[in-house]
């Protein structure tokens, strides 16, 4: 086979692959939109689940609020840990061996199946630490799940900071801590927020880690961190799994997808804005 034909076949293969991926995504989005659109109403978004069996009528407001709260707690918990880890590995860690070890652990964490994380959260947070099945337990478990994603991206962002900028700061004699708070973090702010939001979207879509740690069927809006919570993916799972209402399930899926799309778009815009500085 000549190079030319090989190149040609390769191009066709790339084209078809791209087309297949786009087609599948568009089909899923289109199908959910078509089927879910008719259940969307003010009552659906701002109402509580009603009917017999419960969930067959009414709305999904507690699940929307629950999902947003879970995402917020997961992001807060994970970003504090992830940014600190990234700061340590990039700016303080002098040993290549320790750095490699940290990378290994972070990669391993990214590979843990989410249901295993759920069991871990259940054992440690719910039972051992006595936090109970609550917003806090579920939020922290999701936080552990998204920690590696944030850490990797934040570390990459730090690594992209112009070396001469760091050298200039060092040449002024200021401490590394001062440089991080006054120069590096402000410089990477938009990229960090974008990374946290993307990971938050990932957390919002996950149901396995929260089933054992905090999600309770048709729980109302949580009153405190120790209350159980309802979340959109879990609500969706119950509606279809128990055969309660397929129509409401499509509506729930649509709302979840729209929220995730919005989060991703915001993250993307921030990411583009962040690049302007470099």
């Amino acid at each position, binding site marked *: 086979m000549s190079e030319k034909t090989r190149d040609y076949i390769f191009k066709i293969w790339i084209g078809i692959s791209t087309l297949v991926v786009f087609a599948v995504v568009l089909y899923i989005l289109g199908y959910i939109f078509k089927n879910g659109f008719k259940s969307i109403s003010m009552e659906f978004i701002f109402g509580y689940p009603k009917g017999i069996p419960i969930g067959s009528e009414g709305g999904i407001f507690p699940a929307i609020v629950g999902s947003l709260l879970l995402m917020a707690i997961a992001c807060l918990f994970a970003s504090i840990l992830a940014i600190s880890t990234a700061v340590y590995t990039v700016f303080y860690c002098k040993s290549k061996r320790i750095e490699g070890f940290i990378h290994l652990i972070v990669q391993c964490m990214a590979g843990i199946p989410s249901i295993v994380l759920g069991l871990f959260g259940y054992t440690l947070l719910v039972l051992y630490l006595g936090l109970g099945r609550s917003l806090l337990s579920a939020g922290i478990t999701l936080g552990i799940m998204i920690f590696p994603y944030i850490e990797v991206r934040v570390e990459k962002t730090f690594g992209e900071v*112009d070396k*001469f*900028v760091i*050298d200039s700061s060092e*040449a*002024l*004699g*200021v401490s590394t801590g001062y440089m991080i708070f006054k120069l590096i973090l402000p410089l990477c702010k938009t990229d960090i927020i974008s990374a946290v939001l993307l990971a938050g979207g990932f957390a919002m879509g996950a149901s396995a880690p929260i089933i054992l740690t905090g999600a309770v069927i048709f729980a109302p809006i949580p009153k405190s961190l120790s209350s159980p919570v309802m979340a959109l993916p879990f609500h969706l799972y119950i509606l279809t799994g128990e055969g309660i209402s397929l129509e409401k399930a499509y509506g729930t899926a649509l709302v979840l997808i729209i929220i995730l799309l919005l989060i991703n778009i915001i993250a993307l815009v921030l990411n583009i804005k962040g690049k302007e*500085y470099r």
Partner: protein
Amino acid sequence: MDIIKIKDLSVSYGDKKVLKNLSMNIEKNKITAIIGPSGCGKSTLLSTLNLTIEENGGSFEGEILFKDKDIRSYKKDDIRRMIGMVFQKPTPFPFSIYKNLTYAPIYYGIKDKKELNSIVENTLQKAGLFEEVKNDLNMKATKLSGGQQQRLCIARALTVGPEVLLLDEPCSALDAKNTEKIEEMLLKFSKDYTIVIVTHNLDQAKRIADNTISILDGELVEYK
């Protein structure tokens, strides 16, 4: 008077020796140019003088005296306050011009608004940038032109009140007009500061330097 005295200085990165047994003195309030082909160790010499060499993974042997005291007996912060450095590439921090210039003074505990303002005005004036930017001190520094950015970086290095200013090919990214401006400025500086400038431009060295040091393959070849 010699502000910096270097005796038998060898610098290495790991096993690689970059500078070998260098001895020379740098005169106070004079412009010393270091010339030589790229990769000969000129920049390494500068980063040894303000001790950033260690953070970049290098080490040095021999003696460097700053004001007749071993450079290692000073605290790193103090050395960097007294010996400022400007790099090849203009590196404004992505904040306003004003914040670029108050970044280091605030770290050193200057909180008084008036004092900060006067530091900003003074250093900008010395760098010949004040007239051009006095009405937009809150403008993002990255929006300045390349030449202006480099002069801002020089002003920023002056904000901590150094006695020596190290410049690592400060004009390599600039056009002839901006280069001329910076050269003029450096000539004016020599009454207040000691200047050490790395350049691979022989003409530039001739135009501005009082003393010229040539380095080839890590060794001193000429000193006048």
